């Protein structure tokens, strides 16, 4: 009985105490802004996850981890490189930890898994690396913004045009058999064939292939004018190594997508294997411009290596979101207001170059023809080779030269739709 009475007394006094305390207001001048950073810190994409976190934290540590007087509290949630796990983590971040926005994840399938959840719960989602075409096309939504991001086929549309102008007429494609590979190859195939080029054959290799020599021997047998190639992570390393070992590097020209020669891959490869390779990307760590130079030097000092495009995307996303938070004075209570502020930001220069968003939430920015060469100057301290700019295509939209309404009538790129009739 005594126990019950004292428990009641305790409960009542607790209740009174609670009533006496002022209710915390979301617009309090120093309320923290809670950001959920979904990144794979384990699993197959762990290296990318590390870079994403490094880019994001570099920006915020430079800016005192605060914006307009509000501290930025970033929590990193490990997605384990797995779509199901990414969704669980998004749920945990929003429902248990009260995250007010989601930045990341990395992989297209993780992004596709998280997107419906965020839309349903009205959580702004910023995808700096998830490039799946449809997230800013047929499934575009005001809650999804590819901040400092890209669209898979955006860079390869340019590559198709360029390849034709180089005089290549018979080209083969080799890409990984998943969304990113289909979209990269599709963008290339559509613009290349539209100009009059011919796609000889398209090979889809499973992601995670160690031995590319059987695929390479098929390319060798077909002897095309050039090979368009899309590879990610360890697959890129294997492919580039075996391409060179089989003596094809100086025989059949490569037209590589952005990720194949990303700094995170070429930094581990012998310069002889990669020097001279041409690729297409929205980022070039060797771009000779103040915004890029100063970023790679800061990143080099902090991490001891040159940044990958993943690290750069998250650094620039932090800068972008930071500016938007500045314009709303750190008030994130209304997601619509924050999303509008993010859409209105125009970066006149960033490590990527100038960037603005189109009405579908995808960036319009530079696409670079890049070449792998030996590093010079300050950068030589951090890497042996890097991607320098050969030519800049300014202000490239995800729709290239098509009218958005026309482009959206065609299906998204897949093994059965590559933008041309076979």
């Amino acid at each position, binding site marked *: 009985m005594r126990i019950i009475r004292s428990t009641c007394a305790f409960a009542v006094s607790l209740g009174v105490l609670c009533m006496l305390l002022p209710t915390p207001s979301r617009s309090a001048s120093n309320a923290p802004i809670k950001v959920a950073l979904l990144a794979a810190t384990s699993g197959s994409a762990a290296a990318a996850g590390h870079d994403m976190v490094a880019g994001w934290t570099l920006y915020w540590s430079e800016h005192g981890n605060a914006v307009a007087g509000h501290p930025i509290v970033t929590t990193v949630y490990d997605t384990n490189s797995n779509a199901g796990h990414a969704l669980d983590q998004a749920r945990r971040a929003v429902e248990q930890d009260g995250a007010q926005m989601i930045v990341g994840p990395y992989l297209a399938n993780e992004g596709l898994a998280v997107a419906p959840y965020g839309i349903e719960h009205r959580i702004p989602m910023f995808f700096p690396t998830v490039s799946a075409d449809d997230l800013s096309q047929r499934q575009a939504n005001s809650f999804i913004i590819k901040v400092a991001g890209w669209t898979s086929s955006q860079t390869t549309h340019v590559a198709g045009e360029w390849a034709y102008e180089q005089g290549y007429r018979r080209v083969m494609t080799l890409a990984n058999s998943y969304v990113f590979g289909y979209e990269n190859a599709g963008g290339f195939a559509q613009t290349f064939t539209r100009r009059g080029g011919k796609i000889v054959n398209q090979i889809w290799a499973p992601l995670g292939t160690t031995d590319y020599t059987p695929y390479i021997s098929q390319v060798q047998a077909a002897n095309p004018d050039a090979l368009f190639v899309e590879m990610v992570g360890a697959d890129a*390393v294997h492919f580039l190594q075996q391409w060179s070992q089989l003596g094809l590097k100086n025989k059949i020209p490569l037209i590589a997508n952005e990720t194949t020669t990303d700094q995170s891959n070429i930094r581990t490869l012998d310069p002889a294997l990669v020097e001279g390779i041409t690729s297409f990307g929205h980022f070039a760590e060797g771009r000779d411009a103040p915004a890029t130079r100063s970023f790679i030097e800061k990143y080099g000092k902090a991490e001891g290596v040159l940044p990958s495009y993943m690290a750069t995307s998250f650094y620039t996303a932090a800068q972008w979101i930071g500016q938007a938070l500045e314009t709303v004075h750190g008030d994130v209570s209304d997601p619509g207001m924050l999303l509008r502020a993010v859409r209105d930001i125009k970066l006149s220069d960033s490590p990527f170059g100038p960037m603005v968003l189109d009405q579908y939430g995808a960036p319009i920015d530079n696409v670079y023809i890049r070449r792998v060469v030996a590093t010079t100057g300050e950068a030589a301290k951090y890497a042996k080779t890097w991607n320098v700019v050969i030519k800049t295509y300014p202000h490239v939209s995800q729709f290239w030269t098509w009218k958005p309404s026309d482009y959206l009538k065609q299906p998204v790129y897949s093994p059965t739709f590559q933008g041309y009739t076979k």
Partner: protein
Amino acid sequence: MQFYIQNALGGLAYGSLLFLIASGLTLIFGLMRIINLAQTSFYLLGAYIGLSLVTHGWNFWLASLAGGIVTMALGLAVYSAFLHRYHADPLTSLLLTLGLTLILDDGILALWGGDPHSISPPAIFAGSLTFGTLVFPVYWLVVIGISFAIAAILFLTLQRTMLGVMIRAAVDDEEMTRGLGVDVNRAFYIVFAAGALIAGLGGLLGGPITSAYPGLDGELTPLAFAVVIVGGMGSLGGALAGSLIIGLVNAFGKALFPELSYFTIFVPVALIMAFRPQGLFGRKL
């Protein structure tokens, strides 16, 4: 023609690497009924250790030997601390080695980071041989040669030495062998150590072909098991034949039916399971 020769050589090189992993797997299972899932993690750990030593100026061959010795020591430690209790208990030992795999994977990720690391062959073997339009990396021939040499050493040990006699006897009938006064436990330690040594050694040797990155072990494990199933549990000759078959099927399957590449590897496995469950060289079940 060139297409076939190219793929045949590539398949042989890849298959001979698989042999370095599968030989330990099959012997350990044949002798102790332990399914050592960590065999491919030993390979990966050996590759990373070797790579670190090479970047510190070590000789390539010494570095791969050192990688093998480290994994051997690790294998022995795990065996004597935990695994020796679970002979003939495949489920417990499977879980134990699965746990070891997870620990090794996360340890590797923490120590070496997640970037893929390419490994260059020693400079004298870095070139390619060219016959007309056929190009073949010299180092692949070296890998094939080394694997066959290791296979020969293993065969001679099993067939011609007292230790080999003891191991073969214990594989056939452990109880009877013990009854005859043979120290079977000593053979267990030696086989487990040899399995870990060869896999760890293979890590850097195979590095120029597979490179080193987190998750490589998980990709090799199904292939190594396919080899063991095709060749027959506990049979070294089976492991050699199985490695070459899987290596060649892998190469030609990918080249001829690129969209079915995972499927083609498991076609021989399915055929063996259906018509000869004990494997090509395994004892009748």
